[in-house]
């Protein structure tokens, strides 16, 4: 059983700093009541509905364009762009879920006032999973468009046969990908279970004030987090790595996780920033919270770069053809510029900018930084998925021996049919943003009865 504080944190007067002292007499302090933590009934309903409808229209339009092949696009391109959008949103939700779970497990106090917003982001996780399904359904119905391991013609591939169990068990190569589908269902069920359980406990605590619900949530996370970690890694293998089925990297799951938390922290910072600008959460969230969120952002900037570089460097040194093919493809045909953008924009720039504590504590500065970090997550997913939808033209000599591969179009792979990428990525974000606005506006903005709420209200970094 987890030890919970049986009383409020010991009197700060003992330590003599009244400035961090929350007024606690007579139930909840003023800052945890009324307008400060509530939107009026039905606020944001219009814009939320508009965004969701717009998002669904954009995504549907994008898929229709992909099927029709308008403007030189292909279905393969469409599926890749669809997955870029869906996986960026999924990554943000996964990162948010991790953030909630890990902060339960470490008994962190300072997150009490921001946890509700993280839960609002996390609540989209089952829907993000639902967004994956159309793409997977098209893949299975068409027998493999982007996921070429479903193709009948690859059924004789030696490497695919070695991996057949992972995709097709108990069936065989080229048949219905049974094990793959079972895993997909398991991810959906588990993600729905873990997010809805944590949100239910948190909402119940709002109503009843039962502090032991926190202990229940901790117990749930203690076994839930390891299982959740496995679903992160394996969903990364299944949907992001498998389109290039000859490629394998054991660091893939960690790489995806690092990017996921990176983008989730940016989204959390952004949501709280917007709420502060709306005049909410006064006295609940201070620059000290931003300092800590900034530290998380910084940590996952470095972690992502560390994992990304390690993965690259091991493959670079080992020089195994089926592994290096993945990077060779991305180091040519114009994709190399995207790789450099990731290196500079996902690591070097945020690293030096977030080094300073003044930046981390600066509300206004953190808005463009957070937006940039989310954009970099899109770029990361784009870099992983989109090159797989691009096949360069092979250049052969008179005897049919391959001399070189060259770009298929003069404008470069990233630009041909780029409208499709824009449609699908913005569509996914519009659906997510619409849902998030509705969810944020619907309830109290703070988990008011969290047993550690007073710790979070007076949160301060002592350094």
């Amino acid at each position, binding site marked *: 059983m987890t030890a919970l504080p049986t009383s409020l944190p010991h009197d700060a007067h003992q330590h003599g*700093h009244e400035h*961090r002292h929350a007024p606690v007499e007579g139930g909840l302090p003023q800052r945890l009541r009324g307008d400060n933590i509530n939107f009026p009934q039905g606020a944001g309903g219009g814009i939320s509905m508009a965004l969701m409808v717009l998002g669904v229209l954009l995504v549907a339009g994008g898929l229709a364009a992909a099927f029709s092949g308008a403007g030189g696009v292909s279905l393969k391109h469409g599926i890749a762009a669809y997955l870029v959008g869906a996986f960026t949103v999924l990554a943000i939700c996964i990162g948010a879920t991790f953030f909630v779970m890990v902060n339960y497990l470490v008994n962190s106090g300072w997150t009490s006032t921001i946890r509700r917003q993280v839960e609002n982001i996390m609540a989209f996780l089952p829907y993000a999973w639902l967004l994956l399904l159309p793409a997977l359904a098209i893949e299975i119905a068409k027998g493999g468009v982007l996921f070429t391991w479903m193709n009948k013609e690859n059924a004789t591939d030696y490497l695919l046969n070695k991996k057949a169990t992972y995709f097709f068990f108990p069936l065989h190569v080229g048949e219905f990908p049974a094990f793959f589908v079972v895993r997909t269902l398991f991810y959906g069920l588990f993600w729905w279970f873990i997010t809805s359980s944590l949100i239910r406990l948190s909402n119940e605590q709002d109503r009843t004030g039962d502090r032991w619900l926190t202990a229940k949530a901790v117990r749930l996370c203690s076994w839930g987090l390891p299982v959740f970690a496995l679903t992160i890694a394996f969903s990364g293998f299944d949907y992001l790595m498998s389109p290039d089925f000859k490629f394998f990297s054991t660091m893939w799951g960690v790489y995806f996780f690092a990017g996921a938390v990176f983008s989730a922290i940016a989204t959390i910072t952004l949501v709280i920033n917007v709420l502060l600008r709306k005049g909410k959460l006064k006295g609940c969230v201070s620059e000290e919270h931003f300092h800590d969120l900034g530290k998380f952002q910084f940590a996952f900037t470095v972690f992502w770069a560390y994992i990304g570089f390690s993965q690259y460097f091991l493959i670079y040194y080992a*020089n195994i053809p089926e592994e290096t093919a993945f990077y060779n493809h991305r180091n040519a045909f114009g994709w190399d510029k995207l790789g450099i953008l990731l290196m500079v924009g996902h690591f070097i720039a945020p690293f030096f900018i977030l*080094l300073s504590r003044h930046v981390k504590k600066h509300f206004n500065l953190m808005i463009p930084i957070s937006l940039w970090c989310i954009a970099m997550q899109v770029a990361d997913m784009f870099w992983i998925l989109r090159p797989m939808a691009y096949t360069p033209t092979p250049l052969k000599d008179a005897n049919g021996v391959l001399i070189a591969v060259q770009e298929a179009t003069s404008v470069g792979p990233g630009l041909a049919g780029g409208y499709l990428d824009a449609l699908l990525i913005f569509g996914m974000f519009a659906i997510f943003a619409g849902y998030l606005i509705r969810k944020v506006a619907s309830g109290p903005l703070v988990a008011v009865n969290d047993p550690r709420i007073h710790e979070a209200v007076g949160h301060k970094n002592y350094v």
Partner: protein
Amino acid sequence: MAVSVAAQKTVYMTENNEQVHGILAEFASPADLYHAAEKVRDAGYDKWDTYTPFPIHGMEEAMGIKRTILPVFVFFGGMTGAGLGFLMQWWISTQEYQMMVQGKPFGDFASGGWQNFVPITFELGILLSAFTAIIGMFALNGLPRHNHPLMKKERFLASSDDKFFICIEAGDAKFNPEKTRDLLERAGATSIELVEE
């Protein structure tokens, strides 16, 4: 207490002709110490310190201690390490003695020759920032030192047990045997004594 005026600043001597290190005041609780520290800070002293058995949150504010310059040193230390590490590898393996390893590109930066150099550049960046942090911390704290005048005081040993101390040093520009003692008394000290050098 005899007072002699040296060339630049006042040196205070005890009746036994020993140089005065400062005035040590004992406090009963962290709160007393905290408020006393605020009073000493507001009186404008800057050569003084507090001694407690455990860290007290917010004490740096009560004492008016400014942010340390150390992170800036560490940043430049790290950058120096990374820069020198890169330069060293570039010079050794592309200028001084070219060596082809596993057919990897070298020297030609456009084709990715710099990639080989990343791990050691990173490691040297880390190494020099860690060295700067440790050595800089010691230097800024005036460490290592073999002894401290306060160690002579039997009473001071309680600072690692259950008592809280402030010591204002005689080297402080505002130090005055009577006024400083008076300030500490008014701040609620339970006992005050003179510390010899």
